[in-house]
């Protein structure tokens, strides 16, 4: 990766994306895609029965959604862009080159969605007061909003589907291969009822807040929303099963998985179990909502909500797992290097083509062996510096020094307290992609494996936290600078 290396050594770079993305998915599924049809339906029903209580409830629920989606929802969406750009710019940069127009279209639909939710929320009271044709218009706004919310999901799932399908990139990288991806329809079929069920759970929770305990309307509302949730819950299981059975077919091209079949089977089985558990908790809550609504405490709704959270997290995790060791199937590994780069890098070394160097901090130099001459010390530091650059460029996207998924923790587990000599480490890394197919092959030369080993040996001694370019900056790799001079001469030569 030829960028200054942004690095979070504590929570790790992947969690930065994961936290933002999962929060975003929960909000857009539960408060937008799933909730807008429910709110619109409530408003429509209230108007049909001329019962203002439904209208009031619908508005109150909408308002909560409005507050959350226009703040946390919108900004976590942007946050996904910002975080992915920081963690793996080569991958997102490549995807944008191919999917620019898909994302552009998605954006236009977003603008529509934002305008609609602003209009829907801010005109509710005024237009309802006017009544008649204005009220009808308002209800239509609600259904339009519901439709556009779903469309944004339909588009983005195509892009996600593309990313998961190995081999696509090499043959036909277009938006339509994403739509025609075998996982597209199952994923969309899964997410739609999931969003509706989530919205139902959240709506029931809000109903308990917005209505009084003795209010007969509370029970009627809970019952109706319970029925709504009930209608979608079975589809969650059915579509989950469809997705589960589609994945192996889609995975055919991913050789690594064939070798890790058992671990993958575990993930998939766990997903089914969690999905079933989630469906059961939703159904039990819905039962109470329908038969004994007054016995439904607010806390009870947290159970299916947490279950959905867990299931969503697991689902996203499996999606990530399917992709490994690639970030773009068959084209780019998780370290940001293309498959086609490997021949060159393994022949000449990754450092030869690395523009940047990540200077060692004082803390990282602690614990160097004592009995060295000046020359030896300087030489060792030089090699450790190079090893750090190798680590940052090839490992840091997924591994930290001391934090989550730390390389220290892994080496500790593998080798314990004995010295992490280069024989041990270099030897392991050379062949790790065979025993651990989710790992990309090492993209450097054998010498660089040794350099990496020396860096890791020093890491064992210093136990230092690895800073990122965002706090300590970078220096220019001297090898790269020399090549720059050569390149400049070449350009001048071409011009003459």
């Amino acid at each position, binding site marked *: 990766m030829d960028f200054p290396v942004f690095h979070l050594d504590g929570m790790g770079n992947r969690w930065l994306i994961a936290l933002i993305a999962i929060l975003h998915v929960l909000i857009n599924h539960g408060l937008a895609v799933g909730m807008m049809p429910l709110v619109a339906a409530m408003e429509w029903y209230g108007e049909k029965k001329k019962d203002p209580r439904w209208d009031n409830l619908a508005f109150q629920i909408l308002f909560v959604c409005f507050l959350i989606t226009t*703040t946390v929802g919108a900004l976590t969406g*942007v946050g996904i862009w910002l975080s992915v750009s920081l963690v793996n710019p080569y991958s997102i940069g490549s995807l*944008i080159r191919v999917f620019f127009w898909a994302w552009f279209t998605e954006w236009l639909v977003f603008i529509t969605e934002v305008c609609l939710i602003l209009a829907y929320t801010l005109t509710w009271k005024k237009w309802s007061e006017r009544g008649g044709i204005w009220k009808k218009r308002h209800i239509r706004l609600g259904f339009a909003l519901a439709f556009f919310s779903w469309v944004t999901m339909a588009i983005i799932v195509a892009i996600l589907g593309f990313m998961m399908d190995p081999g696509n990139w090499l043959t036909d990288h277009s938006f339509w291969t994403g739509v025609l991806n075998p996982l597209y329809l199952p994923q969309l079929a899964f997410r739609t009822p999931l969003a509706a069920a989530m919205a139902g759970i959240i709506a029931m929770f809000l109903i308990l807040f917005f209505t009084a305990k003795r209010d007969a309307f509370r029970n009627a509302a809970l019952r109706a929303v319970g029925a709504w949730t009930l209608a979608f819950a079975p589809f969650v299981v059915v579509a989950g099963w469809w997705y589960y059975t589609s994945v192996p077919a889609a995975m055919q091209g991913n050789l690594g998985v064939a070798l890790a079949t058992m671990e993958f089977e575990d993930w998939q089985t766990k997903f089914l179990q969690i999905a079933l558990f989630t469906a059961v908790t939703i159904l039990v809550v819905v039962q109470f909502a329908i038969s004994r609504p007054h016995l439904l405490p607010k806390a009870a709704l947290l159970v299916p909500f947490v279950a959905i959270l867990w299931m969503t997290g697991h689902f996203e995790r499996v999606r990530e797992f399917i992709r490994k060791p690639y970030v773009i199937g068959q084209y780019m590994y998780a370290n940001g290097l293309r498959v086609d780069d490997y021949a060159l890098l393994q022949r000449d070394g990754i450092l030869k083509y690395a523009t940047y160097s990540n200077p060692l901090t004082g803390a990282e130099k602690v614990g160097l062996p004592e009995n060295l001459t000046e020359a030896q010390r300087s030489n060792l530091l030089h090699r450790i510096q190079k090893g750090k650059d190798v680590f940052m460029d090839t490992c840091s996207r997924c591994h930290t020094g001391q934090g989550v998924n730390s390389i220290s923790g892994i080496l500790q587990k593998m080798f314990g307290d004995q010295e992490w000599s280069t024989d041990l480490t270099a030897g392991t890394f050379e062949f790790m992609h065979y025993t651990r197919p989710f790992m990309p092959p090492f993209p450097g030369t054998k010498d660089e494996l040794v350099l990496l080993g020396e860096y890791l040996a020093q890491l064992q001694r210093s136990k230092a936290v690895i800073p*990122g370019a*965002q706090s300590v900056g970078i220096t*220019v790799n001297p090898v790269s600078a020399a*090549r720059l001079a050569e390149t400049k001469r070449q350009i001048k030569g071409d011009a003459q």
Partner: protein
Amino acid sequence: MNPIPVPRDIPLPMPAPEPILVAVLVIFFLMHIVFVNFMVGGALLTLYYQLRGLKERRYDHLAYEIASTITANKSLAVVLGVGPLLAINTLYTVYFYTANALTGAFWISIVPLVITAFVLTYIHKYLWHQMERAKAFHIALAGIICLLFLFIPLIFLTNINLMLFPDKWASVQGFFSALMLPNVFSRYAHFILACPAMTGLFMVWLFRRKDEAEIDGTGFGRAELMRKGYQWALWPTMAQFIVGPIAMLTLPKTEVALHSVWAVFGVAILVSLGMAHLMFAETRRDAAEIGRSFVPICALMLVVVSLMGVGRHLYREAAVTPHRELIRAKTQDYMGKAEEAKREADAAAAARRKK
């Protein structure tokens, strides 16, 4: 002296001809920044009028009217920013992502900072009447919102400035060192002055179209409100005639000549003079006449803003074009080597299989 880094670029073709991507970038960015102006300016004006409202009640009503507009403007500002973000990612991949990484901690903090600002804005607006008893706290809230809205643009400005100067990439260490680079602060001042100016025009538009009952609710007359709007538009714009040229003249030197940039900004200054004259005239008009020049003023502002966008783009191009040539050469060189190495490796593998 630090050598200038020349990284390699992503070896994939552009998704569209460059002029189209540039058009997307410039046009939608201008739309984005106008709504950001309305949002930030709205917050500043709300605070100002709330403070005046302590002495004279009706200013508090006016503050409420302006605060109400932030809700819509902020959401439009955010959503309109996505397109330009896409375009800049595509057109200036290496430059933009490098600047992001070098200021990463603050870059990602945009998310929690903006969320906080928005949530506080909602609290400030929707609990306005409930907070009558705690006016000091209410106004302090408005103050915090303003501080957030004043700080966040600095993060963006620092990024888009740093991205233009590869010779600085090896010397910055985190956000604050990048913040100190020329000419972030003069550009920032130019942007900040634009906020109340644009919001002033927005005020005129707003109070032109509100019905009588809503106008009476503020405690001011329609003409009075419009005049206030024009005053907000006029005086910061007058200040821009000093700050703008300072921002222009402090732009760091580039290898490529900046004649086209000076020309564009020069025309913009001339058009602004005309526009300022009309604004001034409007502030002098009585209730019957005021608003006559609103559409011409807006048209001229559109021209000025467009010229600013174009000038900005021309400067950006001037700053990065020579370096981009180096990147192109390096990328080509690298790709050539990578393909050659791949051919070698494939041939070697084939030879091994034959044995």
